[in-house]
């Protein structure tokens, strides 16, 4: 970790201390901040307004235990990316919207809602964005329980033929 990155980690730890975050640097230009869902909006505000981070994008992920939403901020002066990671459990699946702070988060939060089903509280425009018009409500294609692939456990006919040939003495 180089000195600039270390400085940023210290600054972030100090400023976000009251939210009980964990700040970890991975590599020389990458910082991860884990913040609990109840503080995520405020932490985002601080990163955007006080650290002058530019929201590059946000990503969502369905992990076995919870759904994670990661906001990636570029600190353009030093070329460092800070990822603010927050989470929500799968039953409730609700987070505070960041789009109320700045317009740039609007579309990406709509997309995360479409694909993973995270509802963003107080989102200014929570309409469907990228799924097809005839896609059913409440079905989220990037969830782990969404069975998209054809049943791969079933052996195709030509393979079964092949195994029969091999096993027959």
């Amino acid at each position, binding site marked *: 970790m180089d000195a600039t990155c270390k400085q940023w980690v210290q600054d972030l730890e100090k400023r976000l201390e009251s939210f009980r975050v964990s700040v970890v640097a991975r590599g020389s230009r990458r910082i991860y901040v884990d913040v609990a869902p109840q503080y995520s909006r405020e932490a985002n505000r601080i990163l955007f307004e006080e650290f002058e981070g530019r929201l590059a994008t946000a990503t969502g992920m369905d992990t076995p235990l919870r759904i994670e939403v990661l906001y990636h901020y570029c600190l353009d002066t030093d070329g460092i990316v800070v990822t603010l990671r927050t989470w929500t459990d799968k039953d409730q699946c609700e987070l505070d919207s960041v789009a109320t702070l700045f317009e740039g988060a609007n579309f990406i939060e709509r997309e995360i809602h479409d694909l993973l089903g995270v509802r963003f509280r107080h989102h200014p425009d929570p309409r469907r964005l990228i*799924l*097809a*018009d*005839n*896609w059913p409500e409440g079905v989220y*294609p990037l969830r782990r329980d*969404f069975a*998209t*692939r*054809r049943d791969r456990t079933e052996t195709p006919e030509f393979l079964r033929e092949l195994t029969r040939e091999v096993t027959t003495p």
Partner: protein
Amino acid sequence: MTLKTWALKKSIWLYHANVGACNNCDIEVVDCLTPRHDIERFGMMLVGSPRHADAIVVTGICTRQAKPRLQELYRQAAKPCLVLCIGACACTGGIFRDCYHFDGPVDEAIREVDPEAIIAYVPGCPPKPEAIIAGAVKALQAIPD
């Protein structure tokens, strides 16, 4: 040869429809039209409306959202009309055929509207401009007199 097929073969006007491509095939289609391959010397020209088109050049996997629109495009084109499926995605669905948004392939979507449609397949990811031109020539040869 009927008047209709005579007129169709004379100079093919193309309508380019992207129904969920990654843009790579579209670049190759543009490469066909621009000076290096310049298919306009064969009278092939890109037009802005399917009503003026003799051939619909389709790229992409045919997503759920695009499928009814593609079918509407085909309905609007004057018949007889060729369909050129450009690229692996348009031909078969390619690597995206198990995805949640896949609703093709293109030929099935077209055949729902017109079972007799003349469809040419140009596989490749993306296909070379030479292959696209060869595909168009073969489609022209397939037109019944």
